[in-house]
């Protein structure tokens, strides 16, 4: 293995890991956003329920 060859392989490996890390971060962001949306939705639903109960009273 020549030095250039080795350096190239190492670079490729590091690039593969870094690219994975970026995509992994994206997935985690998506997960967070989905969960936040759900939380908002549940809160709105709860508020609506309380509002309706107040109206009934």
């Amino acid at each position, binding site marked *: *293995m020549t*030095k250039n*060859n*080795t*350096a190239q*392989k*190492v*670079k*490729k*490996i*590091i*690039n*593969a*890991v*870094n*690219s*994975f*890390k970026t*995509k*992994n971060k994206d*997935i*985690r962001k*998506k*997960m967070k956003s*989905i*969960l936040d*949306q*759900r939380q908002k939705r549940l809160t709105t639903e709860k508020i609506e329920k309380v509002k309706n109960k107040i109206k009934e009273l």
Partner: protein
Amino acid sequence: MKNRETGEEQVAQAEQAKKPSILQRLKGIFRKEGGETNAEELTGAIESGEVTIGDVAESAENAVDEQATETTEELQGQIGSIEKETPKDPILEKLKGLVAEEDKISEEAKNEIITSTETAEKKYASLKEALAELIPNSEVMDKELAEKWRKDNRIPLYDFKGGEINISSDEISLKFVNKEGGISQIKINPAEVEGLRDMGEYGIEQKIRAFGFQKYNGEKSLNGALYKLESQKEDIRKQNRWDEFSKESTTEEQAEGEQFKDLNAYLMATEKKQIVPPDKVKSCAIKRNVMPGDIKEKTGSLTEEAPGIYKLQYVDNGGGISELVIDSSKIQGSDNMIAQKMAGELRNTLGLKLPDGTTHPNDKNIGSIVAEETYRQDKKVKEQDNEQLF
């Protein structure tokens, strides 16, 4: 290695002692942010022989695996708690989609890492061809010997190139299913092959995989992978066999069958099963040239051990040999029904044929044996009744 002097040995030992800490550092490099700044350091470590490209690739793969597992577990945890709270929540599908996406990106990254360590070996069509050129003392097993080895090791003749690697300090031995479907064996002296000596098992395996060997389901050992694949294929065959049986049987039989989908469970429930001890199973399987995977479904023999006592030996769903002793004198009334249903199950699920598809010379239709025996018993009872009457 014979070419090493005492001084060189000390250096080698010191290098070996240093290795764990370097590997530990490698782990850190891939885990932390900004790992790209370490490219030069890693290249230097490989050049100086501190680590191999295989070590670097392995650490990179491990780092990917660890992070992917973390994310997947977190996603699974969220899915689990949402399923409990709001089972029909539409976001569940989205989260499940993210799990699949995580799986995909980690596989892609690992493949990328693997291909990064491959070199010019790709130009060779087969491992045999490549190693023959790379390694002057490679040898191919005698065909008959290879076939015997394949059978002894129960390696199925599948269309993928699998094999076994044994690595010791002075010899690397490869046995593999070659392109022609036979087994080839190649012995390599690591000292004679530049670079190979320091590659380690992982590095060598990477090299071999570049020639077409494959890993399945994260199995570390290729031999283990072979067995895993075989077992998966058997599960599919078992399911197909069941589907076929279900198509041909009546609703009532199907309901009965669903209850005892596994023949073993059925026989256990009817308390008619005796399991042969494991050592006997092995010797029996060898004696009958039983290979797991290709004979399970249609093999068995039926012999009359004593008047009215029948012994059925067959390859059960677990891949072992089971014996079923049928005492025909006990088969009457409802018992007879059970036996007939059991016979139907045996015929349909296992059949009683030899591996080559022919019928065993002693093979009789178990159902007709039962019917004949019942007829004989009924006749005997009637004759006795008549004698008493007259």
